[in-house]
């Protein structure tokens, strides 16, 4: 771990009893959903983490508790440091408080997570889907959402597959 990161990790451990993992010099801190806004505010105000570089999630289906990790990748320009915060969320009605009032960038990124993973952000000012059409069902980046494919047509089964294709029918 970078020497400069040690006091930051220590303070998060003290304040939020966060656990941490380390891999290839990257530090991943785990905090509870209800603590995330306080943790982000602390990192931004006390430790100069000005940029929320990435905000995304990982789905560990079929594991249910926790099913998702919401990942906050933070960058400090002043100190040239990075730290990752992960928030484990359960599978049934996943909910995390919104971080839009800490970082404005969270607005679109949280809408993306709502769209792609179905994770809801409490208090989000504009909870609409962002990439998929509004009337779409399901959340594409969840592991239980099928990828889908088109059957390859050959000469011998061309017509048979053609019949099954969802062409517009009049």
């Amino acid at each position, binding site marked *: 771990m970078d020497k400069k990161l040690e006091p930051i990790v220590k303070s998060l451990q003290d304040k939020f009893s966060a656990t941490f993992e380390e*891999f*290839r010099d*990257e530090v*991943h801190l785990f905090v509870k959903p209800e603590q995330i806004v306080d943790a982000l505010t602390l990192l931004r105000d006390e430790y100069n983490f*000005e*940029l*929320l*570089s*990435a905000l*995304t999630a*990982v*789905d560990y289906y079929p594991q249910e508790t926790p099913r998702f990790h919401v*990942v906050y*990748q933070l*960058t400090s*320009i002043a100190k*040239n440091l*990075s730290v*990752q915060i992960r928030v484990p969320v359960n599978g049934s009605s996943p909910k995390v408080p919104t971080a839009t009032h800490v*970082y*404005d*960038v969270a*607005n*679109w*990124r949280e809408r993306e997570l709502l769209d792609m993973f179905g994770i809801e952000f409490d208090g989000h*000012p*504009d909870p*609409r*889907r*962002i*990439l*998929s*059409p*509004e009337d779409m069902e399901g959340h*594409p*980046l969840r592991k239980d*959402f099928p*990828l889908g494919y088109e059957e390859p047509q050959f000469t011998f089964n061309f017509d048979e597959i053609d019949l099954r294709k969802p062409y*517009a029918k009049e």
Partner: protein
Amino acid sequence: MSQIEEVGLDKFKHLVSERALTGETMLLNMGPQHPSTHGVLRLLLELDGEIIVNCIPDIGYLHTGIEKNMEAKTYQKAEVMTDRLDYMNPIGNNLAYVMAVEKLVDLDVPARAQGLRVILTELQRISSHLVWLGTSGLDLAAMSMFLYCFREREQILDIFELVSGQRMMTTYFRPGGVWRDVPVEFEKAVRDFIKIFPKRVDQYETLLTKNPFLLDRTLGIGKLDVATALSFGVTGPPLRASGIDWDLRKARPYCGYEQYDFNVPTRTEGDTYARYLVRVQEMRESLKIVEQALNKLPLGPVRSGNRKFVTPPRSEIGVSMESLIHHFKLWTEGFSAPKASIYSAVESPRGELGLLLEGDGGPKPYRVHLRTPSFDNLAVLSQIVKGHLVADLVAILSSIDIVLGDIDR
């Protein structure tokens, strides 16, 4: 036939001002098909006469599920998806991806491959900025810029074709090195470009930098202050034009960028003109890097010798049993990465291009998240266009330099 719904204002009620509800201001769609939105982007504008009161970007028209598709492919095969991401910067996307994979499996890259990566990535940065300069010239009614810029871009694409066989979707960088060594004509082609290009940038600047029409359209337009930029996660030239000296090539050098002498151009004004100046200056700096990297380019292998991750050369397959086995295993099953997660970022022409790559011990990535710079840079648009004219919106949008493939993924 599905029913066509009448779209009311209800969905956007919380995003527009109260005057829109009474009909005092007008709501107008700009796009999805519009020459100045640089792709399929829809902007819902609330207008008071010709003044923009609110701007609501609507994205997703180009969403192709690249992240989901990558999860279904092996590490080598997922790379071709990254070319299609930011189609003005395929080589830079390849670099971001292969560096993430190399970090995940802890793979070293030979020095010659690093040098080639730097040369090609910087050429790609120049070509991306040339497209930006040409198209924003078009937006500001400087028609000839488009033709001049695409002339030089063609020369760069020819170099890509020379090394990889493809002009755009190259997939030339591979985990552990590059696909194959460059042909002998490569050095001359790059030297020709280095010789000709500074004069051409001078020509562009003669046409634009002090052009009163350009100054009228750009000075003081679309000001982005530092606090807003940081809060919205803006990176790349827009952030540097606002006065923050943040370039990952300098701050966290990768691929041996620390060996090269170059400056990071910054401005403090944060307006459209500052973003223009920063990018033009960046083209000159990139050319400096290309020249130094070409002079320093060492001889040697271009692919790592680690056979657990990198396929053996074709010539070995006929004479070595192990090579045949490695070749077969790597192209059928692929290599496995540890059950861990990394985040790796490079400086793309548009900003920080980051990858969150998570392995599950198998040969396919468990999760790939692409942190694309255009996505966050576009989010700030609604803040900086308020109070400007619709015509200025066109100038501001092109000065942010978005690529819709990069936003929608």
